[in-house]
């Protein structure tokens, strides 16, 4: 566990010291502020559109941070050759992957925390409400979703050589699932066999990232999500993340490093 923690800390430090995150955060603040400064029929209490824009930016930035941070980890270790002194120490390849996974996941979690605090401030500035538990639920689900994304990006970084191609593939896949994942069963119903069964099988197999998108609920001030559902979502995310990490380990464990 110490080894995994040591590896994870370096990834977190990398994110803290790189400029990417700050650029994205400042961009989010600026765009939200611009959207908030628009005069809409002389009504300063309109807030939901601002929440929507802010959350959309947070979701886009979350994906970018998670994918770019994860996609570069292993290729950068290879390119700078730091993987050699690292794996020449008593570190198993499984620990290496887990350390990278937890590092990237923690780093995106820290970024999300800051983004959601900003979201809370934006919301409270007009709503004068702090539904902290609702925000916590939404942020937790968001973080779980990014856990799955980090895991499959890590797998991608072993399968695909170039971080840019891996990043693009992962981003398109994640965005595709977020937009279309919920509707694939309906599309399947409109198809003839055997396409219907094939698409239905794909629908059940893919990780439904959109399940973790509770933006609609916090924008429109809905009630809390049932905690047992949150627990189930946590299990669902853990299962998929574990699956992708296991697949990554299977590919990586015997791969020569020369």
């Amino acid at each position, binding site marked *: 566990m*110490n*080894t995994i*923690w*040591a*590896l994870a*800390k*370096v990834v977190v*430090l*990398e994110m803290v*010291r*790189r400029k990417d995150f700050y650029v994205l955060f400042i961009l989010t603040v600026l765009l939200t502020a611009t959207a908030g400064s628009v005069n809409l029929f002389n009504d300063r209490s309109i807030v939901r559109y601002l929440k929507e824009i802010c959350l959309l930016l947070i979701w886009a930035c979350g994906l970018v941070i998670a994918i770019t941070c994860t996609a570069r980890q292993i290729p950068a270790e290879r390119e*700078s*050759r*730091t993987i*050699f*002194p*690292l*794996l*020449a*120490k*008593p*570190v*198993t390849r499984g620990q290496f992957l887990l350390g990278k996974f937890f590092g990237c996941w923690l780093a995106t979690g820290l970024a999300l925390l800051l983004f959601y605090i900003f979201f809370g401030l934006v919301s409270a500035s007009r709503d004068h409400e702090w539904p902290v538990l609702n925000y916590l639920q939404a942020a937790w689900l968001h973080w779980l979703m990014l856990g799955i994304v980090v895991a499959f990006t890590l797998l991608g970084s072993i399968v695909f050589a170039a971080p840019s191609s891996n990043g693009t593939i992962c981003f398109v896949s994640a965005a595709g699932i977020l937009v279309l994942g919920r509707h694939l069963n309906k599309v399947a119903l409109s198809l003839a066999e055997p396409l219907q069964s094939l698409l239905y099988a794909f629908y059940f197999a893919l990780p439904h990232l959109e399940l973790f998108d509770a933006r609609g609920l916090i924008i429109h001030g809905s009630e809390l999500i049932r905690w047992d559902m949150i627990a189930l979502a946590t299990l669902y995310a853990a299962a998929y993340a574990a699956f992708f990490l296991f697949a990554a380990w299977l590919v990586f464990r*015997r791969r*020569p*490093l*020369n």
Partner: protein
Amino acid sequence: MIWAGAFPSPLCPKPTVETTLSIENLRVEYRSRDLGETTKIAVHDLNLKVGLGEVFGFLGPNGAGKTSTMNVLLGFVPPTSGTARIFGVDVREPIARQRIGYLPEQTYYYKFLTAEELLRFYAGIFQIPSKETEQRIDGVLKLVELDHARKRQIKTYSKGMQQRVGLAQALINNPDLLILDEPTSGLDPIGRMKVREIIQRLKGEGKTVFFSSHELGEVETVCDRVAILHQGELKTEGSVNDLLKEHSSNLEQIFLKLIGYSPQP
């Protein structure tokens, strides 16, 4: 561990000292990408032993199989056949790497970390207690003369300083065996001299040093024993003094002769 049993290769002398590193019938093959060639033999039935406290030079021209052998020793590449052990433990076990320090050639350490943070990270991997970690960081940074730059990010380091921080990371766990891949590559004469001094100091502390180098003069100065590899095969192995006496020549001449190099008239 005391050597036990004899190896079939006539190149291996009868063991008389404690063994740090042993390689038996090691064969490494790579799948070749060239058309019409299925596999490429990088190391061909290599047998080698390195005793405790020795400074061992591992020599050979480019493509001789030195890096492949080192990659097997460090667990980066699985052997096609044969075994390699460090302190009696098969190199495929991660624990075999608990007592070794490795300095790879031309590595660009995490540039966003300071030397101190880098060493703390590697110490964390060895699970060294934090108080001891700080003491070791102080010690190795003084040894490699980077104490003054310990709080600077590595991206601000010169090439020589980067090589020395690499040496520091290889020493953070106080290893009994050091594996150095071209430790003086790309360094200026002062940098080389410093690395040589460090190797001598480590030898004085009873550490085993196994290193590859193209700097034959340096090898002649520093090493107790050497092995020369060519096209994956061990050409010779023995103490530097014995080789020099046997061939009545310097190491460079011996090396060139063994690899079959004849200068153009």
